[in-house]
Structure formats: C-alpha cells, structure tokens
C-alpha cells in the first residue's frame, strides 16, 4: 500500500504456488461503505461475494461473461463482501482510494492504517513522496468452488481445490 500525490493505492499480487491446480493465495477484503474502484491488471481468478444469508456465491453462477480475466476495470458496489481465488500463476489488482479523510477513515481498520499514518497520508507536505505504508504477505487456501477456507497447504490434497 502506497501513496501518490492524490491517492492511496492498495496493490495485491498473488502467486499460485502449485503448478496445476492449487491456489494457495486468496484475498477477502473487508466490507466497504463506499463503492470501490479496482484495476485488475493481470491474471485470472474465481470471484465470490457473500449474499444476505452469509453464503459465498461464485460469480460464475450469476454471470456468463468473463468477469474474472484481466485486464478489467471494476467498481465494486458498497456493502459487498467479496473474495477471490487465484487461478493463474500471477494475479495483480490495485484498489484506488482518494486522499480523503472521510473515506480513508472508513478503510482504516480494514487496511490497518494507524492514526499516525492517516495524518501522514493527508499531510500536504508529503504530496511529492511515494510513501509505502506497509506490506503484508499472506498464504491461505480456499475451496475454488465454495470459498470455504481450507487447512494449510501441507494438509490439502490437490483434488480438494481443482478449478473449473
């Protein structure tokens, strides 16, 4: 996550560690109260959203079009909880947030932005600096058909996470 002159850019890069069927990287962002703009730069993924019953819905069941193939420009509706399972060797998306106090405060908990960092982001004196706020590396496994979280990589058989 880093800043530009006027925006905060959240970059997510996923690497599929298994050569054939496994997708050990998944990402589930917190539900957001503002529409969220996304540039999906590279890769493919199976994308899910959570319905009102709390069930994860595979977007392929709602759509027949290739929503999960980059490059795409997306705006995710507010109050939608979503996640994705990477199905390509490389996956890269960027989320774009304005340097706006109200909006960034909404995202503060989900993006682990400290109060000090928030002030740093909004300080006009930092406009000309690329500030890398922080970076996280995660490794998770989810079922590519149900988005159910699975045990760690060493415990998962390939047959459990085969993708269509």
């Amino acid at each position, binding site marked *: 996550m*880093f800043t*530009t*002159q*006027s*925006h905060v*850019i959240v*970059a997510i*890069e996923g690497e599929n560690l298994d050569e054939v069927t496994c997708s050990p990287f998944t990402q589930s962002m917190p539900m957001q109260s*503002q*529409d969220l*703009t996304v*540039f999906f*730069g*590279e890769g493919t993924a199976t*994308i899910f*959203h959570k*319905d009102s019953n709390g069930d994860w*819905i595979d*977007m392929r069941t*709602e*759509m027949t*079009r290739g*929503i999960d193939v*980059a*490059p*795409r*420009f*997306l*705006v*995710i*509706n507010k109050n*939608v909880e*979503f996640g994705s399972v990477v199905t390509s060797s490389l996956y*890269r998306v*960027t989320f*774009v947030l*304005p*340097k*706006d106090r109200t*909006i960034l405060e909404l995202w503060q908990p989900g993006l682990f932005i400290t109060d000090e960092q928030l002030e740093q982001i909004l300080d006009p004196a930092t406009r*000309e600096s*690329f500030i890398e706020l922080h970076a996280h590396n995660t490794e998770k496994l989810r079922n590519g058909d149900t988005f159910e979280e699975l045990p760690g990589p060493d415990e998962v058989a390939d047959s459990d996470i085969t993708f269509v």
Partner: protein
Amino acid sequence: MASVEVRKDIHSVYIQCAMRINDTIKFDWVLPESYTAILIKGSVVFGVEPAATPALGLYRVAVGEKLEVEATEASVLFVPFLLSDTSAMDAMFTAADDPRTASDYYNVTDFQSTAYRVNSTISESTGPSENLVLTLADLQGIALTAKGA
C-alpha cells in the same frame, strides 16, 4: 495500436492506456502540478529513464513534463486525478467534456450485478505498433464520448 480510455468513479477520473510491445504514447500537454502514472501490467520505459519499469510500477510526472511511455511488452497503465483537483481538471478538460459534470462512472455498464456497479473490459490494443501523440483535444474527445455513453 495503443488504446486510450477515460474512466470515472465518484472521486476520480482515470486516463487508461493499453499498449502493444513497441507502442509509444506521449501526453502532449503539461500540468501545473506533478502526477503519477501507475503501471498495472507489462513493462514500459517511462520518459528518459534508462531502463524499463515492470508492473507494478509508478512514475512521477514532474511539473511541466510531458508523459512519454514506450511499451517493452503488452502493458496497461492508468493515470488518476481527483475530480476535486481543480487545477488539473481545469487544465485538461473543457466545459463540454468535463468529467465533473458527467454521471457517475460515465454510465459504463458492460454489466452490473449484485457485486459490481461496473465491470468493464480494458480494450487491449491490436494491430501494428504505433507512436501515439495524445493531444488535449484527443483527450477531451475521448472524455466527451465517454460522457455521452
């Protein structure tokens, strides 16, 4: 050839460029403030940089500089501006094509769903490589088309 689109959301406008290998794009205008180009796919040479920058890459365009990009492989980049950035917006757009007076998202509706308000393909360029000089008039024409979509 390269393709250039103008996108919009509730807070920003984005100049989005998709390029083939060896395509070049030059923004034939300067702004009174610096801004950033964000490379999300591929690899490009920015300006007079000595080496290619791979995705994910950022390039700061200095005050008075014209952004120049040469793709060393198929690439996609975008340049964001806040709609509230009066200085940049007034410098780039006219009253007719001003994104600030356009509907949210330019009414781009490749398709919508429960989850997505906009889910739109980024048109990857086809055909021979080219050297594209994008003038302000070109940009305004693209924005006007998007506004009327």
